[in-house]
């Protein structure tokens, strides 16, 4: 039986990797010694640390499996972190059935991606820095999901944001990439502001920031309905930022500027799902705020639909996957919004596997084609990269929702719950599913099938350390769905200590709904196949206006640019040219020039001739004498 110290060790292994890699990079950063801290050295350290962490995580998981439901909790009391009057915060960790799932996924996908990065970052000049950041990210992500109170979660929340920023702008010499990092950080700031306000409100309302006391406080509190609505609303704003929902999703597509393993780990599998984690963790709070849940469901559904529509026309292989991620995150919020938190978590898990797989596959393609990201310049890679092709095919089938691949089960469960929530939500979800099938088939076809459109490049298959992670993820993409088979869902049973008993009444609608969503997926795929079988990049689009609109990502960036950036620039220009230069500077400089001119006037008296001064003395004497004699006397 492993105790809480092993749990702390699990968290600290990535931290150790960060320290070793960071110090190693720091010591060997001079150009003459750079080779000593090569990708193989740095990557092996990073991967080993993650692997230890992963082994511990899965050990805990299997240990929990053997325990009764209420005993599946492991707490580490930690130490007193903040102690200010009423505010007492302990730096405590808590592993329960929900966080153990997340920890397993994070450490598993994390280790695989570390392994993959060894190959991917082989030619990078500073791999020590890269692996240090990646390890640091995993550390903060573990803190986020293991924290037992708001401040600890917030620590992880901000930490992963920081690492995301550092890794998006990893190739910071490229101006556009540095800008993308900044954008991600700033947009996340807006969300974090909402999160913080929510936390403050929790403290003023309930007086406690730890989750377990909060749970009891919520159950016993009276007359706090309005506060709960506000708390949930504000926390949802935080989740919108981190998990890329409309209107704060704009940073995620730009985040693809980072190295592809980063996109896979941070911007697809783990960090962006922390919003869903938080909502699920606080389900006892959110279920008391039905309005927020309704908003969440609609925001999620609309995000899913909108992002999928943009993904239809993207040319950049990573942009397609980025919008697909936004869309899938929308699905997860749709699930949480209709009260099916378990389904949301289920989709988080399956999505982590198949989206990481797709991203790593795309990375393998990009690596093999020497940094080519344009889908229109690929094609026919099936022959050159047979292993990547096979694995991406599994991911493709999973995300399209073809039974029995994992995406089918999780998506179908969300759609099933959405149908009970609202008819419109379900319809939007099914249309999105068809669109997902369409654009993923387009992605798959343009990259791997058809004829080759890349005459000049020498394409090569990736090495074993890049293919092995793909194969493991491929395995999970196929089989992870069996965690949540309808009516016999292991996952729902597992999450009962967190979410309470789920009441399922079979109402005979499951099979028709399932049939419709599979039909939608198959239709999308077929249409896409028929459309791209004779693909010619020069050919005119069927709906040129719409295609143009979607290819430019809905002009959202341009719109926001006009709405905020340009407006801010105008206001700043006005403040500078009129308020500052004309008014403030005018006043200040006016006072000084008045003094100068008066001085110039008095300067005329200073002739330097002794007699003039004497004359003045005399006049002064006469005047004061006269004053004394005639006025006073």
């Amino acid at each position, binding site marked *: 039986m492993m105790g809480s110290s092993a749990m702390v060790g699990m968290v600290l292994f990535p931290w150790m990797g960060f320290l070793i890699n960071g110090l190693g990079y720091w010591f060997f950063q001079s150009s003459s010694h750079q080779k000593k801290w090569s990708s193989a050295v740095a990557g092996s350290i990073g991967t080993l640390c993650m692997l230890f962490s992963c082994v511990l995580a899965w050990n805990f998981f299997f240990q929990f499996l053997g325990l009764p439901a209420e005993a599946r909790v492991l707490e580490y009391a930690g130490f007193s972190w903040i102690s200010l009057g009423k505010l007492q915060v302990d730096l405590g960790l808590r592993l329960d059935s929900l966080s153990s799932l997340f920890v397993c996924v994070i450490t598993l996908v994390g280790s695989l991606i570390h392994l993959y990065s060894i190959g991917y970052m082989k030619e990078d000049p500073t791999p020590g820095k890269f692996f240090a950041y990646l390890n640091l990210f995993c550390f903060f992500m573990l803190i986020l999901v293991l924290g037992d109170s708001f401040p600890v979660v917030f620590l992880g929340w901000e930490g992963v944001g920081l690492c995301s920023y550092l890794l998006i702008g990893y190739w910071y010499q490229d101006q556009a990439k540095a800008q993308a990092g900044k954008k991600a950080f700033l947009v996340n700031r807006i969300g974090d502001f909402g999160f913080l306000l929510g936390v403050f409100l929790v403290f003023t309302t309930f007086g406690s920031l730890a989750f377990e006391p909060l749970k009891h406080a919520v159950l016993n509190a009276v007359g706090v309905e309005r506060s709960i609505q506000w708390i949930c609303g504000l926390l949802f704003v935080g989740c919108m930022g981190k998990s890329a929902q409309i209107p704060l999703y704009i940073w995620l597509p730009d985040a693809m500027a980072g190295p592809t393993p980063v996109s896979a780990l941070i911007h697809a599998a783990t960090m962006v799902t922390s919003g869903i984690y938080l909502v699920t963790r606080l389900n006892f709070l959110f279920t008391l705020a039905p309005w927020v849940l309704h908003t969440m469901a609609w925001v999620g559904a609309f995000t899913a639909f909108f992002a999928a529509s943009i993904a239809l026309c993207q040319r950049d292989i990573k942009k397609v996957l980025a919008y697909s991620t936004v869309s899938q995150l929308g699905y997860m919020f749709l699930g949480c919004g209709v009260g099916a938190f378990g389904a949301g978590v289920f989709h988080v898990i399956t999505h982590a596997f198949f989206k990481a797989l797709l991203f790593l596959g795309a990375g393998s393609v990009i690596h093999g084609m020497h940094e080519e990201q344009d889908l229109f310049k690929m094609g026919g890679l099936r022959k050159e990269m047979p292993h990547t092709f096979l694995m991406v095919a599994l991911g493709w089938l999973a995300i399209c929702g073809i039974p029995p691949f994992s995406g089918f089960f999780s998506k179908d469960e969300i759609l099933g719950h959405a149908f009970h929530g609202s008819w419109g939500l379900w319809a939007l979800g099914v249309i999105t599913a068809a669109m997902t099938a369409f654009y993923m088939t387009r992605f798959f076809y343009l990259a791997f099938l058809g004829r080759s459109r890349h005459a000049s490049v020498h394409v090569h298959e990736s090495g074993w350390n890049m293919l092995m992670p793909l194969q493991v993820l491929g395995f999970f993409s196929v089989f992870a769905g069996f965690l949540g088979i309808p009516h016999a869902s292991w996952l729902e049973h597992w999450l009962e200590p967190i979410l309470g008993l789920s009441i399922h009444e079979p109402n005979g609608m499951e099979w028709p709904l399932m049939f419709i969503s599979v039909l939608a997926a198959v239709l999308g795929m077929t249409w896409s196949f028929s459309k791209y079988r004779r693909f010619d990049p020069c050919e005119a689009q069927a709906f040129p206006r719409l295609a143009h609109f979607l290819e430019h990502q809905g002009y959202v960036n341009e719109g926001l640019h006009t709405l905020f950036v340009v407006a801010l620039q105008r206001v700043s220009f006005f403040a500078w040219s009129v308020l500052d230069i004309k008014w403030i500077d005018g006043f200040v400089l006016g006072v000084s020039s008045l003094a100068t001119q008066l001085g110039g006037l008095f*300067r005329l008296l*200073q*002739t*330097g*001739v*002794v*007699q003039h001064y*004497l*004359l003045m003395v*005399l006049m002064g004497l006469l005047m004061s004498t006269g004053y004394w004699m005639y006025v006073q006397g």
Partner: protein
Amino acid sequence: MIVESWILLSFCALIFCVGLLGVLLRRNLLVILMSIELMLNAINLTFVSFSYQLQDIHGQVCVFFVIALAASESAVGLALVIAWFRTMKTTDTYAMQYLRESP
């Protein structure tokens, strides 16, 4: 012979004004020093005449102080003038505008 005091005082005032105008208008340092002596002596004469008129010895005591002061003043003043003349070869006050604000 009794001199009318108004005549005496008017004479003193006249000499004082001559001294004052000399200080203000003449450009030669030596003449300026002499004019200052003139003013001081006009004051001395005024003291003496008032002392006589009011039959008060204090006025004459004051004169002694003024004479001592005038002697020391002219000693210092003449020394300064000589030093100035040695370096600048002139005693013209209009040539000594070194503290003037440059135009």
